[in-house]
């Protein structure tokens, strides 16, 4: 079937290694950020979110880091598994202005067995 990740940058990692996926966001007024995972034929799946009053948030095997000074967001995945292979999008929102999410371009994560 068609690939969500067609023409997107690809990050290839070895199974068991840690992955770091980076995102540069555009709006300095954004104060809410979400990472999504999208597999082919499916909608984006929520992974983790962070608000601008924090610089780090941890979930199960995932950590999000926010650097507001340089408008940079990263997603760290520990002990990457084949099931983590997907396209990853960061999304930003300016909650004071409206509620819409603006998505980044996406990165394809490919896990080598």
């Amino acid at each position, binding site marked *: 079937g068609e*690939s969500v990740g067609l023409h*997107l940058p690809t990050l290839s990692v070895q199974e068991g290694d840690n992955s770091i996926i980076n995102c540069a966001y555009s709006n300095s007024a954004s104060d809410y950020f979400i990472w999504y995972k999208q597999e082919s034929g499916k909608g984006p799946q*929520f992974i983790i979110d962070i608000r601008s009053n924090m610089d780090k948030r941890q979930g199960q095997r995932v950590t999000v880091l926010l650097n507001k000074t340089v408008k940079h967001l990263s997603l760290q995945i520990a002990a990457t598994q084949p099931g983590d292979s997907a396209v990853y999008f960061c999304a930003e929102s300016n909650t004071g202005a*409206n*509620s*819409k999410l603006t*998505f*980044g371009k996406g990165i394809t994560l490919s896990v080598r067995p």
Partner: protein
Amino acid sequence: GAGVSQSPRYKVAKRGQDVALRCDPISGHVSLFWYQQALGQGPEFLTYFQNEAQLDKSGLPSDRFFAERPEGSVSTLKIQRTQQEDSAVYLCASSPSINYGYTFGSGTRLTVV
């Protein structure tokens, strides 16, 4: 239901035909969003509802696109006189409150021939 449900899953329309795409959000979710995702791209915002009120329709690409949520639950995205450039996946997302944990459906893939 357990998640956001969208129907139909796939739709093929002849150019000039009208289509209606349905979204059943998670029960009780106040916020509902429609996004358009072209192949290999991130989702792009179309419109936003809070209950039955359409608070933001700035992303609708033309007056051929119309969305409604008359009773504050199910929403329909209607596209009149479809054009080839309307071919995309149309995603619906819902959230229990503004700017919190959006859950996406699997989308409707529209192909205009």
